[in-house]
């Protein structure tokens, strides 16, 4: 299984914090080992081309932007990503 890098894009608003919590919880629940990186630098965020924060990026791919998916959905997205890798 390949390694997974999860990035949370956002300048620190309440939604970004919620998204990070959901992402960490999903990783725990799915027993997935991944590195979680918070990206708060605006030019760096813009490299992903999103127009709304927060953004959820897995292995450099933008999966969600502008909303906070709940833990179930985040877990589903992570699982899809892992399946695609395998």
């Amino acid at each position, binding site marked *: 299984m390949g390694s997974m890098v999860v990035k949370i894009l956002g*300048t620190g608003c309440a939604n970004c914090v919620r998204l990070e919590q959901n992402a960490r919880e999903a990783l725990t629940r799915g027993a997935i080992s991944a590195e979680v990186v918070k990206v708060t630098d605006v*030019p760096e965020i*813009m*490299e*992903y081309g999103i*127009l709304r924060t927060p953004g959820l990026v897995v292995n450099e791919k933008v*999966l969600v932007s*502008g909303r906070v998916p709940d833990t179930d959905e985040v877990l589903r997205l992570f699982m899809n990503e892992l399946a695609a890798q395998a």
Partner: protein
Amino acid sequence: MLTWIADLVTYRLLHLNPDTHLAAALHFFVYDTLKVLLMLAVIIYAVSLIRSFFPPERAKRLLSGRRQFLGHVLAALLGIVTPFCSCSAVPLFIGFVESGVPLGVTFSFLISSPMVNEVALVMLWGLFGWRIALLYIATGVLVAIVGGWLIGYFKLEHLVEEYVYKIKVGAGAADEGQTWADRHRYALDYTRDILKKVWPYVVAGIAIGGFIHGYAPEDFLVRYAGRSNPLAVPLAVLIGIPLYANAAGTIPIVQALMEKGLPIGTTLAFMMAVTALSLPEMIILRRVIKLKLIGIFVGIMAVTIIAVGYLFNAVI
């Protein structure tokens, strides 16, 4: 059905005598609260369903390269239907400017988005009737068009922070391809979120309408801020600029002001100044534009809103 619930609460649960003033006021309060909350739920749900079809990426595509007047009109209208919160103002601003949306058109979008909103629409409709609700929407769009157009007219692109033009904006996510089930879930979540946030303001607004009616001295505000005082509109706007609340939060204040005889134009101007010009948003925007442009923006908005206030005081 709503009358039945209001009857139940007023006469059965609290055993109030239907002939008393208190019973009438409470009946009105329960009925109106239920009515407005129900309207809010339905309209927020409908609006968020519509919004799921207008992600900001779409607004960006539609607006890039449009310098003419049409661009401003389109931007002001898209500002209403595009889901957007001021915490995303920076990425949105950079994304728009980078993809060739003119600065003034970007501002038209940024102005109309917080000012013209569904909660304000429902509250104004429920409390003052559909005419005032429509009037507010129409003038909000007008202010956004004129404000953005003026910023474009003065060619202020050099007042955008230089780094903005150097940023390489990525391709972004592919469209998620939402199903109707996704849209429904998004709309439901959003409706719940907003209702949770605004219900205290709604209740406060209706309580002010129902209970305080007739208690505070009627002529106090009218004497100082009525039609006879030509400075009332600019004063209302000046007071409104540093105040910050979302549109729903201003409704109780607006309700109280109108109840006490403040003319409609002065009231709308106050409400617009509170919602469209907020210190937190200025601080966020300061990251992408220079202080001078923020000053110009506030100035243009203040003048435009004051003009709208005078217009409505004169017409209605």
